[in-house]
């Protein structure tokens, strides 16, 4: 989930469709993204605690309040990969480096490692940034076994409330488990500007339509942990299907999101709450 958050926080060129690909095998996790690419500032942020380039993009909204469209708040988030893997190699041309928690200061001191990527099979159409996790932290458990529950729980509705990501491809392959799915979100040119279409292809092909409505609430009560959070945006997404040229509501409970899924509490709409601090 952390890598999905990070991918949604990335910068993308205006003419590309933001894509995230996650490929999991027993020995490694490969994450690819067509973001604009790492800068020196991004790398320094990854190598620090308590500071991220993400926070630099906070802006003022039309009411002069601080607004951030980012999910993450701290560079500390990236280091959660070390709960999963000992070594992380990152390629984002022209940068090729490794962070390795078995090295002294290896979680914060990058090591140039072009050879790691030179020696890998070449992808025919590599995306700008590739992150490869190797050496599971728990040597007795492979990556597929560790992540299987997370992978199986992913749903296309994940894309409903993300800011930038439009396509997510996820695959996992081991000796006794295999899964591959492509999720995408689009805005059909139907005249209904609130209409969103979700598609899933892969082992099964399915489509969903949602009407999404946003509402901003100002002057939130003070919260000690988020002193700068004064606004919040609540989004509701109603699943619908076309019946004789009219959109009809689809019955069934839906999930609650704080950008990413939080849980299913029996609501019959998808529900998202987002403070101006990011979650």
């Amino acid at each position, binding site marked *: 989930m952390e890598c999905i958050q990070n991918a949604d926080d990335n910068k993308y060129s205006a003419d590309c469709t933001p894509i995230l690909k996650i490929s999991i095998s027993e020995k490694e996790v490969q994450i690819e993204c067509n973001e604009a690419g790492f800068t*020196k500032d991004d*790398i*320094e942020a990854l*190598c*620090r*605690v*308590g500071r991220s380039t993400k926070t630099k993009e906070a802006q003022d909204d039309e009411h002069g309040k601080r607004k951030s469209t980012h999910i993450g708040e701290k560079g*500390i988030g990236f*280091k959660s990969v*070390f709960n999963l893997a000992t070594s992380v190699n990152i390629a984002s041309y*022209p*940068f*090729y*480096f490794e962070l390795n928690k078995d090295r*002294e*200061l290896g*979680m*914060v*001191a*990058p*090591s*140039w490692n*072009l050879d790691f990527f030179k020696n890998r099979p070449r992808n025919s159409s590599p995306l700008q940034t590739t992150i490869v996790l190797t050496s599971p932290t728990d040597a007795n458990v492979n990556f597929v076994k560790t992540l299987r529950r997370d992978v199986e729980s992913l749903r296309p509705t994940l894309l409903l409330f993300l800011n930038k990501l439009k396509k997510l491809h996820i695959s996992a392959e081991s000796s006794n488990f295999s899964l591959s799915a492509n999720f995408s979100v689009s805005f059909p040119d139907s005249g209904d500007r609130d209409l969103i279409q979700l598609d899933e292809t892969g082992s099964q092909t399915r489509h969903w339509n949602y009407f999404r409505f946003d509402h901003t609430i100002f002057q939130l009560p003070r919260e000690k942990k988020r002193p700068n959070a004064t606004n919040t945006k609540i989004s509701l997404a109603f699943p619908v299907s076309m019946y004789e040229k009219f959109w009809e509501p689809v019955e069934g409970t839906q999930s609650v999101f704080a950008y990413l899924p939080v849980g299913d509490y029996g609501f019959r709409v998808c529900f998202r709450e987002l403070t101006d601090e990011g979650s």
Partner: protein
Amino acid sequence: MDLGEAEAVIKAIARSKGIFSDEWIKRVVASGDEDTLDLIRANKELRADNAASLEM
């Protein structure tokens, strides 16, 4: 930026962390280099930052 420049950036970031490693500080203490020890004392916060990273 080309590969050579990128490599230099990565190594500079690593050096900025490495000079505060425990091993490096032990060497400085052993050498009795007071100027460098003053630098270490002045950067206690940065060392704490790195130490926090290691403990995560």
